[in-house]
């Protein structure tokens, strides 16, 4: 290795490189791998600064939340599928929340609110970005760790604290927040408006503030690492699309999450200190409150300024994971690498100027609305480019249908289905009748919820061997995939029809509406499908934890015959990732099936006369 020290201008002291742990005296320990140090249980598994361990912490916390969030939906689907039917075990489990075995309206609203919050923020933001940005950014860029391992660790522990606060709120006497995941005032601004608008809502806001700090700390690191700590030869146009996607995701978060924080601060003041940012004259049970002069719609502007980019914060990592896995298992170069990056950038920019499409019914000026319609529909263009490229990537490929690959193909299917309904909703004239119906529920669950889950699951199946040095069980993986894929369509497809006939979302019961009674059986069907899909996720969780300890061991350091750098490390890399010097990169990561070579890792130099597939 001493041959590496050929550069005389090297000034180790001021590099601030992540791998040189600077202690309080500022001295630098020059070792990439930690094995020389004694590692204690706490520093290795709990307060770890190793990005790989932090990634696993995010993943396991995310799985926990996915379980909770999914369970909540199964419980509220009981009410929708079997309204007013008594299930005594519900009373046994939830006591006063399900008197006589029937879910109370307050409990119902608490369940939907927390279901949305948990899945959108704690699973598909923290669980997804947190896991894969941590695991893949340093490994695929060729860095020893994040730019600041310490802040990275803090990012996880802020998430953990946020999780504790949210979890505790379930056990408050009045229960957790129950004012909808979008937390619109005045409902969320007035403590007396609903049981969960009291302490539960304050817990929610504090939990979210902690969550925002966690995302921001994580994001700072992800961006800095990608831009500053790439290994030699890893130019931006040789980065795997996963890294590009995670980079753009982090930038979106950095710009939009502070706005949500601002909205939450104003809301906290309105709730607890009597200001009137959002609240105007309000009467509760005939008594006027002290507020006057607030503007509730203002909250919606602030919320959706984050809210819309947030949906891309959720889906972009899935874009990246899917692109990577599809190319790898199709044994073909990704189709349109440049176009993939440009379309993600276009989506990211457009994401900031379309937020009012969530507000067409708030009395938005129709001329303003028409601008938002135009900008919203423009998003369909880069989205279509991506879909086209994914299909072109697998077209005539030599496909290996691993569970990861199946989830990617499923992703593309779902993303198309859900994207098409976005075009309906993007037109204000159509959105006005469809807004707040099950059509919107169908749209965003398919295009965001389930799609992002598929991307995440593909990622877990694909990189599980890197995380734990073992494989997950394939048979369970196939069962998991097929039940989830078919089940997800069974749950959400019918909701389009319900929405088109006007069935409103967020209703506890439809008994009072003659016109919606005809959906009784359909609702039962959906509930049963939801239970089935939930059951399939338990198989996944079982597979995950079983394989972690007992799965088939990985013997080949590059089990998927992949080109990217993470597979050039040992099977179970230590802190610092590469034992020797960092790898040098000579090519993009998508040289599959080229000149008779099935795959050519990024670390292989060009042969004389070899043609470049990519610039």
């Amino acid at each position: 290795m001493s041959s590496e020290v050929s550069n005389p201008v090297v000034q180790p002291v001021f590099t601030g490189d992540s791998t040189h742990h600077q202690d309080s005296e500022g001295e630098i320990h020059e070792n990439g791998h930690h094995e020389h140090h004694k590692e204690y249980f706490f520093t290795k598994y709990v307060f770890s600064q190793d990005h790989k361990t932090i990634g696993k912490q995010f993943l396991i916390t995310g799985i926990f939340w996915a379980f909770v969030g999914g369970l909540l939906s199964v419980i509220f689907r009981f009410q929708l599928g079997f309204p007013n039917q008594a299930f005594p075990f519900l009373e046994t489990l939830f006591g006063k929340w399900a008197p006589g075995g029937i879910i109370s309206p307050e409990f119902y609203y608490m369940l939907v609110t927390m279901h949305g919050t948990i899945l959108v923020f704690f699973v598909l933001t923290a669980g997804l970005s947190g896991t894969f940005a941590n695991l893949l950014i340093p490994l695929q860029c060729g860095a020893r760790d994040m730019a600041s391992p310490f802040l990275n660790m803090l990012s996880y522990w802020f998430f953990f604290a946020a999780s504790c606060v949210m979890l505790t709120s379930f056990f408050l006497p009045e229960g957790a927040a129950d004012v909808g995941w979008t937390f619109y005032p005045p409902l969320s601004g007035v403590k007396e408006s609903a049981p969960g608008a009291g302490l539960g809502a304050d817990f929610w806001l504090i939990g979210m503030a902690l969550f925002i700090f966690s995302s921001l700390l994580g994001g700072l690191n992800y961006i800095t690492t990608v831009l500053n700590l790439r290994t030699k030869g890893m130019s931006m146009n040789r980065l795997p699309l996963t890294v590009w996607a995670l980079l753009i995701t982090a930038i979106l978060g950095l710009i939009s999450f502070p706005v949500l924080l601002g909205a939450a601060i104003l809301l906290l003041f309105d709730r607890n200190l009597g200001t009137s940012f959002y609240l105007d004259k309000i009467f509760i049970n005939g008594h006027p409150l002290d507020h006057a002069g607030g503007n509730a719609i203002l909250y919606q502007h602030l919320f959706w300024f984050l809210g819309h980019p947030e949906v891309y914060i959720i889906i972009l990592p899935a874009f990246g994971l899917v692109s990577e896995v599809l190319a790898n298992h199709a044994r073909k170069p990704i189709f349109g690498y440049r176009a993939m990056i440009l379309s993600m950038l276009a989506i990211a920019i457009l994401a900031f100027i379309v937020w009012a499409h969530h507000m067409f019914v708030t009395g938005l000026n129709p001329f303003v609305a028409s601008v938002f319609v135009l900008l919203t529909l423009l998003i369909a263009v880069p989205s279509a480019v991506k879909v086209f490229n994914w299909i072109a990537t697998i077209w005539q490929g030599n496909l290996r249908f691993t569970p990861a690959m199946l989830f990617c193909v499923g992703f593309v299917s779902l993303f198309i289905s859900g994207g098409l309904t976005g075009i309906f909703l993007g037109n204000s004239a159509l959105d006005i009748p469809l807004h707040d119906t099950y059509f919107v529920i169908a749209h965003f669950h398919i295009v965001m919820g389930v799609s992002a889950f598929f991307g995440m699951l593909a990622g877990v199946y694909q990189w599980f061997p890197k995380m734990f040095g073992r494989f997950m069980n394939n048979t369970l993986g196939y069962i998991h995939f097929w039940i989830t894929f078919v089940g997800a369509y069974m749950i959400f497809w019918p909701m389009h029809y319900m929405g088109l006939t006007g069935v409103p979302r967020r209703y506890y019961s439809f008994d009072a509406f003659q016109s919606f009674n005809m959906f009784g059986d359909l609702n039962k069907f959906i509930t049963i499908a939801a239970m089935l899909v939930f059951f399939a996720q338990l198989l996944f969780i079982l597979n995950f934890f079983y394989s972690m300890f007992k799965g088939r061991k990985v013997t080949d350091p590059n089990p998927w015959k992949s080109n990217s750098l993470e597979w050039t490390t040992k099977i179970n890399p230590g802190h610092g990732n590469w034992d020797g010097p960092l790898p040098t990169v000579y090519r993009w990561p998508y040289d599959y099936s080229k000149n008779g070579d099935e795959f050519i890792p990024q670390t292989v130099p060009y042969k004389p006369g070899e043609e470049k597939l990519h610039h």
Partner: protein
Amino acid sequence: MNMMTAEIKTVNRFHPLKFMMWLGIAGMVMLFAALTSAYLVRKAQGNWLEFRIPFIFWLNTVIILLSSVSMQWAVKAFARYDVKKYRLAITTTFTLGVMFLVGQYFGWLQLDEGGIHLTGNPSGSYVYVISGVHAAHMAVGLLIMLIGVLRAFFRPLNPNRLVNVQVMATYWHFVDILWIYLFIFFQFNLA
């Protein structure tokens, strides 16, 4: 023995810690952009109380400007390892920072006495909350600076920490400029 060469070639131009600070600043800019946009949107709606911001805010503006000057002086002194000057400069900056915060508190008291309360017409609430969130940023900066001050007196200057001092200075200048922006913003929108 040496693992670092490859990385060093990639760690170029911009120190990652400094880069991160700038990214953090981008995030903070978004927070205040959101708050001040909310202010403008609400103001455009009418029913908006107009008042003068307290005189003491002018004074505080001068104080915070001075603190940026002394902060710059501290960075220079540190870079020359001039312990005496550094101690003086960093302590001055810290003291000015504390004075600013105390001054803001008196500003709020003055507002309150003038009949502009935290509750009531939102035009007043916005001034309290926005300047309050800014003060929170100052307070965090001061906490971190306190560590710097203590180190200046109890530890020898360590050249490796120059970058920390520079990053702290960047933050400090940022909250300074932020205040100037808010101050001008209030001036324009209130009176």
